[in-house]
């Protein structure tokens, strides 16, 4: 686990993918997880949808990320329950490698949400109607750029839409400061050691 690029403000091209229940198998199919590595997974992102032939990587022109307006997208606007299913962190590594920094959806798969934060991607939960309005704005103007201010917890669009979002203080700090969670926890080592010592007395059968 290494520190991530801090994310306090971000402006980038937004792309809509409004199917509901997009699972991590769709974000990166199992067979694309070929190497024991977190790197270089961007080309496998949405492989089953993005390529007409996954072997040769011949593109499917109908898939939105293959349209020129969206090739540089860094903000994904998605349908409900995005990232449900398998815990594979490869889904987040693939999104990150592709260049996605922010994902907006009505709700997220819970493991996926945590994986985003740990890898420097900001997941934003907004009401369904908000998300639909954002998608409509993109569709009306492909290539439009949205801006996110994580410190103020705001997302704004050229059409003047402003959405405020919630995020836990801990997640916000991790993202804004690009922190390494392990190092952060290790600062509490004394606390952990004494907690375990007391717990050993209470629940000796747990310790082998």
């Amino acid at each position, binding site marked *: 686990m290494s520190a991530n690029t801090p994310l306090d403000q971000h402006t980038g091209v937004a792309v809509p993918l409004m199917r509901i229940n997009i699972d991590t*198998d769709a974000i990166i199919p199992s067979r694309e997880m070929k190497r024991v590595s977190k790197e270089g997974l961007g080309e496998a992102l949405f492989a089953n949808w993005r390529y007409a032939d996954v072997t040769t990587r011949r593109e499917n022109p109908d898939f939105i990320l293959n349209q020129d307006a969206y090739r540089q997208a860094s903000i994904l606007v998605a349908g409900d329950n995005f990232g449900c299913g398998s815990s594979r962190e490869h889904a987040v590594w693939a999104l990150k490698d592709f260049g996605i920094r922010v994902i907006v959806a009505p709700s997220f798969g819970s493991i996926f949400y945590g994986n985003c934060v740990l890898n420097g991607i900001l997941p934003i939960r907004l009401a369904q109607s908000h998300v639909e309005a954002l998608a409509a704005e993109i569709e009306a103007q492909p290539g439009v750029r949205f801006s996110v201010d994580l410190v103020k917890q705001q997302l704004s669009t050229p059409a003047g839409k402003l959405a405020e979002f919630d995020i836990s*203080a*801990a997640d916000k700090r991790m993202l804004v400061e690009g922190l390494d969670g*392990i190092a952060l926890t290790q600062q509490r080592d004394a606390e952990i050691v004494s907690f375990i010592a007391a717990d050993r007395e209470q629940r000796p059968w747990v310790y082998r």
Partner: protein
Amino acid sequence: MSHATLVEKIWAQHRIADLGGGSALLLIDRVFLHERTGGIALQGLAAAGRAVRRPQQVFCTMDHIVDTFPGRGDATRMPGGTAFITSTRAAALEAGVNLFDINDPNQGIVHVVSAEQGITLPGLTQVCPDSHTCTLGGLGALAWGIGSTEAEHALATTTLPILRPKQMRVNFLGRLGRGVTAKDMILKLIGLHGASGGVGYAVEFAGAAVTSLPVEARLTLCNMAVEFGAWTGIIAPDDATFEYVSGRPYAPDGVLWQRAVDHWRSLASDAGAAFDREIDIQAETIAPQITWGTSPQHSISIDEPVPDPQSQPDEKRRAAMSRALAYMAVEPGRPLVGIPIDAAFIGSCTNARLSDLRAAAAILKGQRVATGIKAICVPGSSRVKQAAELEGLHQVFIDAGFEWRESGCSMCFFAGGESFGQGERVITTTNRNFENRQGPGTRSHLASPATVAASALKGQITDVRRLGRQR
């Protein structure tokens, strides 16, 4: 703490520090790894110059990528798969964690092994970089799936920062009907309340139809909590749990056992404990379930017609339904019963324990699967396989025309190796019917072992309750 839920009690016992905003740093009692994601976590840790803090509490098995054909070794059908196996083995040995390697008699699917070895105990916190870790809530442990980066955190510190979940209780009231199983209960719940119905919640399963379930069936019920979107599922430990855990290799014994049981008895939710949401389901209303689409929420009673997208007012849901119908090549307005299948699969951490194999074998005994059906049984662990063979179950499967495999995840998911073919229709005891989950273009119908066995015999989707009459 006089009105605490089961989850709140375990949470409080593991809370090292409050991190603000509803998060806490929790003590993690057990970490389980497998070669698909565990090797990456161990390597990532080593690359950062960090050590596994308490290797004796860390376990690793080979299940996801390993071949399930007899006489297997490190070679696998998945391109590049062998590297996952060898690098995970090397990293596990280097870190000194407990390893159930390919030919270890205790090898098997991670969540099956964890329960049967007594590694999971009631009241523990347990994590694994695998979404179905919630299976182990069936023993009254707080167990959930995490990512690889979180796994590195848990390995290095024996802790994890966790956002406190909301509390839901799902009460299955009354008694289950004949031919209805834990698999049908959870599919019914997801069918009624959706694949995101449990997002943000820890879900306690309760009620007479749950407490009367044998422990293995409780594991099935909790296994699919994640398909409900829940953070995890859990069931209060009781005498049946203690009896199940007792005498298992990693379980406590002697004086410690007595102390442990006393503690475990105190974990059940207090009367009057508050839940953010409660759902009641009458067990009598549950028929055997089957999925028609590409999400576990596309679940219906076996005698019910496939829903019509036209009756769905929400446009997004209507589109998702139409897409699923097209992928699955099924028609709305008609039940699935009678649709010909190409294959039947009995396996996975959902439904491949000994009781599942017994349930299927009871239906298959003395019968043969229909001509042309590819039928496969993959026991959930090497111990399950061994126990089944001692009872002669393997012979029932083989005589019925099933392949009898070595243990592993096998065709629960497609990793680029073995798969059911394009457009093949599979009835399966697994937990995910996503597009391409069991192979490119493969159509998966989730059901219980009994329904799968009955359907394999008929060569078509079959209501197990009517099997006798049809035959």
